[in-house]
């Protein structure tokens, strides 16, 4: 039953991914003129032979459809061609170098967002219109109204430059060396048992992580609060109390367990928000991930690199939605095992 469900959803993804790849492919051709010239215009001295090679590589003299087919075929094996803003190194290599950094930042932000927002949402819902609730609601509103680049800068100024509590760029303190196993510094530090490195990695993640987490946390607070308020008025919550259960068990086990189910979908959507903010935040904090890579690639018109990164983001987003659906199914037994009647 599981396999069928997941298989079905994966099948539905195919046209979506096809559409995405088509749009990504077109980015290279949107401006009038020779794309190669655009790209190379930024890269400095290139020989005519290299220009011709590239032309052949991208089959620019063949019809669009053929070019697309070529693009797709190569993309499926991860081949995006050379990145000239990186001296002709394969795009795949350049991206792979920076991907773990973004992965670490994203996971950290996601965890931070959930860890902050779920308790706040729950506490706000327990006493609606109370002081905490009002503060939480106001905070959530602020969270979705703040531009990420502004929040990042303000945090940098406040905690980095004025108070000197936290670093404002990079991933590790200078001089610290970490044997890279996964590329995720905090994980590697854990594996190596290096406390100082772990601390350093986390300190560097905190400001960008907070900035990235803010909009998602704000939305989740609202969602959890609203879902919990609905659940808390349900009969089974009252019955749980009538059984003599302590209030904490009533709220955390009975109410929250049910409230989280509709919240999961929203969380997945908001995780998409997280991804969107990633680029801006990496630029603000000069964080060496694929977001910053993409922005740099844009200013150098390095289309193949841009294409690869956009595809990665789109793929992640799509998988995230799939994950949300699966999670929804797991959490709600009513969907998993539809009523058999009697």
């Amino acid at each position, binding site marked *: 039953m599981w396999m069928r469900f997941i298989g079905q959803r994966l099948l539905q993804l195919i046209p979506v991914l096809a559409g995405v790849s088509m749009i990504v492919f077109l980015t290279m051709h949107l401006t009038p003129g020779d794309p190669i010239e655009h790209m190379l215009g930024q890269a400095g001295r290139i020989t005519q032979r290299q220009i011709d090679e590239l032309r052949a590589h991208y089959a620019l003299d063949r019809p669009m459809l053929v070019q697309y087919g070529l693009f797709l075929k190569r993309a499926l094996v991860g081949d995006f061609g050379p990145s000239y803003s990186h001296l002709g190194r394969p795009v795949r290599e350049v991206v792979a170098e920076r991907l773990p950094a973004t992965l670490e930042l994203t996971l950290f932000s996601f965890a931070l967002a959930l860890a902050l927002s779920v308790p706040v949402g729950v506490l706000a819902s327990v006493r609606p219109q109370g002081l905490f609730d009002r503060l939480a609601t106001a905070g959530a509103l602020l969270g979705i109204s703040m531009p990420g680049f502004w929040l990042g800068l303000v945090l940098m100024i406040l905690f980095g430059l004025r108070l000197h509590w936290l670093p404002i760029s990079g991933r590790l303190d200078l001089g610290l060396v970490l044997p890279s196993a996964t590329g995720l510094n905090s994980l590697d530090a854990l594996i190596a048992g290096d406390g100082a490195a772990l601390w350093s990695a986390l300190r560097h993640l905190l400001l960008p992580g907070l900035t990235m987490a803010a909009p998602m946390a704000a939305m989740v607070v609202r969602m959890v609060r609203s879902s919990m308020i609905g659940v808390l008025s349900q009969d*089974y919550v009252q019955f749980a109390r009538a059984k003599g259960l302590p209030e904490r*068990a009533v709220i955390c086990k009975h109410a929250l367990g049910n409230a989280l189910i509709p919240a999961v979908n929203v969380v997945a959507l908001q995780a998409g928000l997280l991804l969107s903010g990633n680029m801006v935040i990496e630029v603000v904090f000069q964080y060496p991930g694929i977001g910053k890579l993409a922005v740099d690639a844009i200013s150098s018109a390095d289309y193949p690199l841009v294409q690869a990164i956009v595809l990665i983001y789109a793929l992640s987003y799509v998988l995230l939605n799939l994950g949300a659906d699966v999670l929804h199914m797991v959490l709600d037994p009513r969907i998993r095992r539809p009523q058999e009647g009697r």
Partner: protein
Amino acid sequence: MSQLLLQVLNLQTRLLTHRGALCPVDGVSLAIRRGETVALVGESGCGKSMTALSLVRLVPRPGRIVSGQVLFDGEDLLLKPDAEMRRIRGRRIGMVFQDPLSTLNPTLRVGHQIEESLRVHGVARGPAARQRSVELLEAMGIPSARERLQSYPHELSGGMRQRVMIAIAVSCEPDLLIADEPTTALDVTLQAQIMDLLARLKAERGLAILLITHDLGVVSQFSDCVAVMYAGQIVEQGPTADLLQNPRHPYTQGLLRCVPRLGRPDLEILPIEGSVPDTVSPPPGCRFAPRCPEAWNRCWTEMPALRPHGEGRTVRCHLYAEPQLLAGEGGME
């Protein structure tokens, strides 16, 4: 003469709404002895459920219990600290609600929900708890009990769900069971089965039951005493057989006229005119006066008190405070 298990004295619960203060429970007094079944009867909206919730202090916000006493085994529950109340709920007073589908947690297995009760009150845990759950379900008449423990509420039929809820309510061997409309959501055959189950539990465990219902048929078959409630107040009380044969209060009489009687096809079924009053600003006199066929001057200006009238009977009606009126009226039909 068994001792008094529950004695409610002048309980008053208030609800603050945007329209003003409502009093769904307005000076309710009740008494239940050990092993006795007392039925609390009345129309929807008369405050029966709120009374039940008030007894265990589960009144939802914006409601609050404002005065009165709830003496359970001699101790006033309204004065107890929260932690002690939690120990009493489920352990000494069990509750069964109306709609088992919405009252059981839809995302937890049924067995888990039973075991939870046992665990929280320290009766049993782990495998012992599971064993007890199986025994409980079997005692409720549920076949293949062990497999049933793994089901979710929506996978069971209505009757089975109600049995599960009763199982949870009696799992810790309480002294008192408060059943709020336990059969309203079920069809007639299931109703009979559930009432039989409750009767059996009462006989086997000496359980006292506060049965809240609007079904007079159930009341007549099952309860020892009846209390009739109207607009937040008790208007009549007494042993079931006597009360149903000789209803005193006009409201009770009206209720009985609404029910068709087997073997008496000639008896007209008469609805009671009017509807339940708005308790935000209740009229000064008797609450039932607007709908009462016997109402006279005093009824509109003065609220009658709940007074004894006959053995074990109480009535809240001016008709019974004036002996000469009784003589004049003759038969009440």
